[in-house]
């Protein structure tokens, strides 16, 4: 990837200053440059802040939650008030405490299922792009086939095989997302392996494994990071959707999607059961997506969409 500073960044500077800037930018490490660009991205900074708070809540949730998320905290379906600020559900459990506990679940789901998709997808993409020919045809056909299953439907089909549970929902979402990585990495590898230094390393006697891991993989890492960040949001939404349908987290797990479903039958009398967990999902996904957008702009200034 080309990390030379982009001309569009230096607005209204004279030629000399621009040269100076360019000169300085060249000595700046790619990593620091990315951080600098990211820090100027308002959305990304806001997103990072929210994600930071969410991670904190995920860690210390049980200690700051006013009630046990599975215990009865008050009357059934009591509206938001001073002691239960988001109200209670039909069993009298405190919605606020359950929303706090849910942060851990949703973040775990996001990261784990993305990690599953990433490991499978990157491996397949590397193999297809690096070895080409039969390996490429086989992987590409498989990926195209998997991509033919629309959205959440593939995850649903997988859950129907594995059985409904939060763990299986994560696996299903992970498997459902690997084709995107495989396709991306394959394309990147195809161009990266043509680099002269890869050829040089091969001549020196590097094994295929070493070539792939040490020389080709680092070249494809930036777009993979971008895709992963943007995929976390999708993964959280899909897993929450599965739980909403009863195919993911099972009661009494305080999973946000399942909680929205809990409130469904009481919508007429208790809007709060559905509303607050939904806002939590939305905020989380919004924050993660903002970070992803910022990373994309920072790592790949030319690839803005």
């Amino acid at each position, binding site marked *: 990837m080309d990390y030379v500073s982009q001309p569009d960044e230096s607005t209204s500077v004279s030629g000399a200053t621009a040269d100076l800037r360019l000169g300085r930018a060249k000595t700046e490490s790619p990593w620091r440059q990315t951080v600098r660009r990211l820090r100027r991205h308002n959305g990304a900074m806001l997103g990072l802040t929210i994600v930071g708070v969410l991670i904190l809540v995920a860690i210390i949730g049980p200690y700051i939650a006013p009630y046990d998320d599975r215990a009865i905290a008050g009357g059934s379906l009591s509206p938001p008030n001073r002691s239960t600020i988001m109200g209670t559900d039909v069993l009298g459990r405190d919605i606020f405490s359950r929303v706090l506990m849910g942060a851990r679940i949703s973040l775990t789901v996001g990261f784990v299922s993305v990690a599953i998709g990433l490991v499978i997808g990157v491996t397949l993409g590397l193999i297809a792009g690096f070895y080409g020919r039969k390996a490429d045809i086989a992987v590409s*056909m498989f990926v195209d*086939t998997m991509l033919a299953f629309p959205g959440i439907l593939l995850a649903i089909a997988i*859950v129907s095989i594995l*059985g409904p549970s939060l763990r299986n929902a994560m696996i299903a979402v992970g498997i459902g997302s690997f084709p995107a990585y495989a396709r991306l990495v394959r394309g990147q590898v195809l161009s990266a392996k043509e680099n002269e230094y890869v050829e040089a390393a091969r001549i020196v006697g590097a094994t295929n494994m070493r070539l792939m891991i040490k020389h080709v993989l680092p070249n494809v890492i930036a777009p993979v990071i971008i895709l992963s960040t943007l995929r976390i949001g999708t993964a959280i*939404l899909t897993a929450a959707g599965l739980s909403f349908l009863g195919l993911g987290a099972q009661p009494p797990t305080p999973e946000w*999607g399942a909680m929205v479903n809990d409130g*469904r039958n009481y*919508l007429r009398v208790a809007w709060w059961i559905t509303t607050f967990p*939904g806002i939590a999902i939305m905020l989380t*996904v919004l924050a993660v997506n903002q970070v992803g957008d910022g990373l994309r702009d920072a790592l790949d200034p030319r690839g803005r969409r």
Partner: protein
Amino acid sequence: MAVYIVRRFLYAIPVLFGVSILVFSMLLLIPGDPVSLMLSETSATSKAAVEAKRDQLGLNDPIYDQYGRFLKSVVTLRLGTSIQTNRSVGSMIRDVFPKTLELTVAATLLTFLIGVPLGVIAAVKQHSLLDTASMILANVGVSMPIFWLGLILIYIFSIKLGWLPVTAQKGADLKHLVMPAVSLALGGAGIVARLTRSSLLEVLNLEYVVTARAKGLSARVVVTRHALRNALIPVVTIVGLQFGSLLGGAVIVEAVFARQGIGAMAVNAIQKKDFPLVQGTVLVAAFAYVIANILVDISYAFIDPRIKYGER
């Protein structure tokens, strides 16, 4: 053009084969014996009864025979027999498929009708408050869980305001379609708005647009007649590709609004362990998606005359 269309369809054949193999192997991958599962839902499971059922379903035949039969049932559109209803899966799907199609087509239209104006406003008023507001709206739209949005719409427009019905009533009224279509469309509309904005910004700097401005044409004419035409090409791609996620999203929307449809049927089939029905619904959805993608590809040639497919 004709060559391209034929080639595009030919390329889809191996993918459809792949889909059929994956869907077929779903039944093999289910842990435990599907027949015992099927029978335990209905009656006592003696060993003899299980064996008899296995023979009847042909599960004791070699795998390739089973796949051959499965493929035949796909080609003849029968898709096996539902365990719950004893009806042909093909005819059950034919009954509800129009419902899902109606929902996804309405949502696709809304995606376009909400997303494009939002993106145009943002691009034309770049760096203004309107731009920021539009993009915040778009990002929120992308981040909202469909099922939650659906319930919130029900709460506001059915329960509080009483304007819209939650479920379809007997009269062939389009009102019942409004909330399901909106909740399905908003996510895609957000994506379309963002894409329209960046695509239009790019085009607005091109020389022919500058020329059009220099001729003294009004800003409105420049944007709508000159810039937007080219800016919308990538947008059409995305709207087309969105069709797939809309089909997936329909699963959730149908559950929220208790609508009949292929998605609701799939979820119900999974819960009831009606595997032929699961296979059938998943297969039909995947086929619909593949065909939609082909249609999108072909539509480019009409939208963008620069693309010449015959020669490659």
